[in-house]
């Protein structure tokens, strides 16, 4: 008994003061990408971008839904360097908002009516549909003492029938298609769907594969897209809080 108490004192208080303060990320952290847009003659090295994350229209843009946030992408452009900023905020409400040039339209809050139904709590069911387990590990990490998800009234529940929505990872394998559909149908209205990670958004490195779909959207509508491979727990948390209207642009709760 004393051992437990002594240990408790030694361990101290470890929860981040987020969202009041944003912790600093290490220098090499790869947050929201910024693509060089000053060049008129724009060429990309297709070999370095095998998943087609760079979109060339009038101006070059980067699709955060396809990007695996890998270091190799930095030299994808013939001139200029793609930069990964230190900004962890990346979650958006529409698929097209993931394709960014210089600024990003971050996720907007759910409508008033839905928010009233959910009240101050959000209960989610997580479905892993072919992910490598990376995104799931980060979702699980949100529950530890550092991020302490439950202080925001957000919890993961054991059954879809107890849930307000689904948080889905993985490209959705053919073998998980039916299980995912059934789980979705079991969630009572009104329900939300959150796609976490490059796989759930676009198929990620598996895109185009015979055994997988290219993301959740091929099967069910998505309300919140959280890019990354895997997204940092704070990126996911940022998306959830925006969805609940607790973070608006630069404003804190």
């Amino acid at each position, binding site marked *: 008994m004393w051992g437990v108490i002594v240990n408790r004192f030694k361990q101290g208080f470890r929860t981040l003061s987020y969202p009041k303060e944003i912790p600093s990320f290490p220098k090499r952290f790869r947050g929201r990408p910024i693509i060089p847009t000053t060049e008129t003659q724009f060429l990309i090295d297709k070999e370095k971008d*095998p998943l087609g994350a760079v979109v060339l229209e009038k101006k070059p843009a980067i699709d955060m839904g396809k990007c695996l946030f890998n270091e*190799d992408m930095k030299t994808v452009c013939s001139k200029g360097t793609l930069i990964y900023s230190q900004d962890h905020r990346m979650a958006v409400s529409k698929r097209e908002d993931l394709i960014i040039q210089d600024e990003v339209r971050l996720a907007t809050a759910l409508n008033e009516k839905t928010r009233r139904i959910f009240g101050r709590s959000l209960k989610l069911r997580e479905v892993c549909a072919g992910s490598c387990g990376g995104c799931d590990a980060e979702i699980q990490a949100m529950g530890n003492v550092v991020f302490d998800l439950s202080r925001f009234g957000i919890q993961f529940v054991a059954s879809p029938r107890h849930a307000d929505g689904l948080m889905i990872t993985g490209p959705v394998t053919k073998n998980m298609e039916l299980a995912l559909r059934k789980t979705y149908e079991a969630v009572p209205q009104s329900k939300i769907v959150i796609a976490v990670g490059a796989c759930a958004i676009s198929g990620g490195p598996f895109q185009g594969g015979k055994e997988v779909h290219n993301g959740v959207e091929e099967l069910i509508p998505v309300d919140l897209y959280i890019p990354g*491979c895997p997204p940092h727990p704070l990126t996911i948390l940022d998306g959830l809080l925006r969805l609940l209207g607790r973070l608006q642009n630069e404003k804190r709760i």
Partner: protein
Amino acid sequence: MEQKEFHARNGQSWELNQIPILEESSFRQKILEGCHHNLRLVNLYAQQDENRNIKVFAILGNDQEGRLTVFAMQIPHDQALFQSLTSELPQAHMFEREMAEQFAIAPIGHPWLKPVRYHQNYRNVSDLWPEVSSKSIPGVYPFYRVNGEEVHEVAVGPVHAGIIEPGHFRFQCHGEEILNLEIQLGYQHRGIEKVMENVSVERAVLLAESIAGDSVIGHATAYCNIIESLSDCEISPRAEAIRSIALELERLSNHIGDLGALSTDIGFLPPSAYFGRLRGEFLNLLMELSGNRYGRSLCRPGGVLFDLDEGMIKNFRERLLIAQRDLKEISDLFFSKSSVLSRLEGTGIVSKKTAKELGLVGPVARASGLGLDVRSDYAFGMYRFNYIPVSTVHSGDVYARALIRWLESQRSIEFLLDVLNQIPEGDLQTKVSVLKPNHMALSMIEGWRGEIVHVAMTDSNSRVVRYKIKDPSFSNWMGLSMAVRGVQISDFPLCNKSFNLSYAGHDL
């Protein structure tokens, strides 16, 4: 019949025509005799050659000498069957089922012939289970059943209650007691092996990082070793050292996360919170090194993308020393409580004999007293110079699997402090050239779950025509089934956590 032997070592590549091709009877006999004399079936897999015939390759490991024996047999495409080894050699069980599914070759006499991942075969002929591929789900499946009064069945999954990957568990119970557990996976099947054969090196390494999300470094290193070996590229000692640092950080984060998960499952919450936080410290060190909490983008064919400078090394050492102290304090708290020990001891026992028969690997095998560890048996990279002592525990229960994680974590921190003291010089990247034609390469890595094995084969145009991946989970799931026999069903979650196997790594 010519009976030439071909031996190889971990990380080597060799010409395909060096591999002896045996008659089926001598192929069988060689495997059975070898495994009778302390060899282990490291891999058994099939490939279709250019004449549409099937070749089955066997890789036997001599763990004491670090030597691998490779040989093959041929099966004609119009008579796709062979005599199963499983009833005489249980460790062949999953390999044979996998071959039956991937290449529609029937292992005659297999006692438990069922699909593994539910996909169509790679030969475009009719499947051994035609009804399976026409339906969209796994689980259409004749589960093993126990009949009798008061015997009942419990079905769990694919969508579980926690935040974990999908799989189906079917228990046959008598009251609380588990008589049999059958585990059916395949829900996570993404077809990685096939995709690997058809994409560029740049994309394949991203796929390798996504085989199992908690073993990014393990699988990426295995893939890089394969490409380096196939192109005679010697990476610098510095790159080797940095890869080994990342691999040990990965091991630490997972082992400590598992200790936390075990504390959660027995309802002892203080250490669960502390271990959970401590796991993050190691993930954050990986992020400091590679920019990603799981070490993505660190390993690339030819070396690594990130260096450790003097300042970082100092910082890493300081943080590791603090973590070492914290780990000791929390583990002392956890392992000294009688209520903890009474829950862990004697629960979910896998005997040494069973572990050996099933070919279990990694910490699970070491917890049953088998001294297997690729880092010392088939030493690769930095482990050739800095030796990590192998820890073993003999009781084979949940306690042993928890203790082994603590012991190995201590050894890993000591290794890291040692390597950080003397990182060798060298370039981060060495140029990778064209792959050698008609070659086979093999790479084994001791990931945190155990032996990761990658094998690649090239054709005459230097194209990779077969990429075989074995995650340690593939060998170990059967161990979990055996561990829970006779255990109360309420202890299943605890047993499951003590294995903590990957669904994605198994399903590929």
